């Protein structure tokens, strides 16, 4: 019962925040930043399933994001595939790719896993940069609006509502998943692989599953991002974008869906806030990353909740 209210309550609150936030938006730049924040939030909710819940690091997720974006770009622009078809097809391809690489990669642990995922991301980045005949190379490629069922999604406001809805949906699905037999198995993998194995959890299959799911999340967000932005460059696959995504998850709070969401929002807003002190931006970002991890190694949301709990006298 308790859980149910947290679920419905959290979702309702999220929906309310998304609905009310535009009151403070004086122009479409705000919508734009908000949409980017929500894109990152969706992606991080998916990535958190892998990192926070199943305990497997990935330093290459920007690669899957970029494959989704370029998949949509290439299919819609060069082959005239309808946007939704391109999105689904790209996600499927990314899913298959993730499935193929997942098994050998997820046998690795710790830094070896970090290295391998980093390698995958970098290889994708290089391919996107080099195959300029189809990707446009480092100068990037443009693509058109997202059209579906005769409806064209365009303009920052419209995107805001669409992505807002998708964010609520993504959070809902993730909440469902982690509180299901599948989700519990995933979390058990993080808790103790051998402990899960001996009660019948095929841990390697679950690791593959969550890797594929989070990659598909990234791909879908990539596709939408590409359409919304109208222009993409291979740098969205860069190592730094991957690091940024992981930082969002860890900063907000691993194994916390709302934590990942908050981390994504904060790190998306940060460069906008720091634009005024542009030359110190790198130092401030670095200091925030170090400071949060040193003083709140569990991430912002779980640490804050824990301290509230302590102050509230144990409950």
């Amino acid at each position, binding site marked *: 019962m308790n859980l149910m209210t947290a679920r419905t309550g959290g979702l309702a609150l999220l929906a309310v925040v998304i609905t009310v936030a535009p009151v403070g938006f004086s122009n479409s730049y705000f919508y734009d930043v908000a949409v980017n924040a929500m894109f990152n939030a969706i992606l991080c909710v998916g990535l958190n399933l892998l990192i926070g819940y199943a305990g497997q690091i990935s330093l290459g997720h920007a690669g899957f994001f970029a494959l989704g974006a370029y998949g949509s770009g290439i299919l819609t622009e060069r082959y005239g595939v309808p946007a939704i078809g391109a999105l689904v097809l790209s996600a499927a391809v990314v899913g298959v790719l993730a499935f193929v690489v997942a098994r050998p990669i997820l046998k690795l642990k710790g830094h070896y896993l970090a290295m391998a995922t980093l390698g995958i991301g970098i290889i994708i980045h290089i391919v996107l940069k080099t195959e300029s005949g189809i990707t446009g190379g480092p100068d990037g490629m443009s693509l058109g609006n997202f059209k579906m069922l005769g409806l064209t999604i365009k303009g920052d406001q419209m995107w805001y509502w669409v992505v807002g809805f998708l964010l609520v949906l993504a959070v809902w699905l993730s909440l469902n998943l982690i509180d299901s037999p599948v989700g519990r198995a995933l979390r058990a993998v993080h808790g103790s692989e051998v*402990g899960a194995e001996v*009660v019948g959890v095929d841990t390697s299959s679950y690791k593959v599953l969550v890797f594929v799911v989070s990659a598909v999340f990234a791909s879908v967000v990539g596709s939408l991002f590409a359409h919304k932005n109208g222009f993409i460059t291979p740098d969205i696959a860069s190592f730094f974008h991957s690091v940024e995504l992981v930082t969002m998850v860890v900063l907000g709070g691993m194994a916390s869906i709302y934590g990942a969401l908050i981390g994504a929002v904060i790190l998306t807003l940060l460069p906008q806030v720091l634009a005024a002190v542009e030359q110190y931006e790198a130092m401030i970002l670095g200091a925030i990353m170090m400071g949060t991890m040193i003083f709140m190694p569990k991430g912002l949301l779980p640490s804050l909740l824990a301290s509230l709990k302590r102050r509230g006298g144990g409950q």
Partner: protein
Amino acid sequence: MSLLKVEKLSKEFGGVHAVEDLTFSVEAGHIHSIIGPNGAGKTTLFNLITGVYTPSSGRVLFQDRLVSGMKPYELAALGMSRTFQNLQIFFNMQAIENVMVGHHLHLDRRFLPSLLRLPKVKRRDRECRDYCAGLMEFVGLAKYIDADAASMPYGALKRLEIARALAAQPKMLLLDEPAAGLNATESREIDEVIKKVAATGVTVVLVEHDMKMVMGISDQITALDYGRKLAEGTPAEVRANPEVVSAYLGTHG
């Protein structure tokens, strides 16, 4: 009938024989204890039986079926479940969720229904939760049903592992030092739990240092030393065996 047969089992780690040419069998319905001094190879034996390690040679048969080389989760599906000397609790989850993971094999594990939280999944999950709450009561953890695993005391976690293993509805339960680190009262309580489990018809294989417990509840004991079988028999027989006594207490001078 022998539920488990271990035949000429050996395991080496870099030239050291942790288990050597070991043969014994466990009768269905028994509480069968494996004892021996530290480093005798008990935990290695458990890991070999439950598929965590692969044997260097020899075979393990469960219900007359060759199971050596199978993965732990496959063995779990055949009805073998265990606990650990060093706890393998999912500290990132609630206590009852730990037990619910134990029930994993008996749930709808398909991805899409889980993702969409279909009514059927929801209902089944609620049943599972009730069932697992029942198991927690059974092992004496009623007051921890809503607790986070990370907030529970050590003794309770030992039982939580037993509840988790029971949730898999095993035919054979292997307990690796369930009383280690517990005080006398807690040990006696665990003792009771093991007896209750055995009474439900589950075969129990037990590795334990607490001799009071072992001698009190075992139907059969296999004593190991240096990875080999030292003695076998009822508690009285084993206790009287001079080799066992000297393996434990050493020799005079």
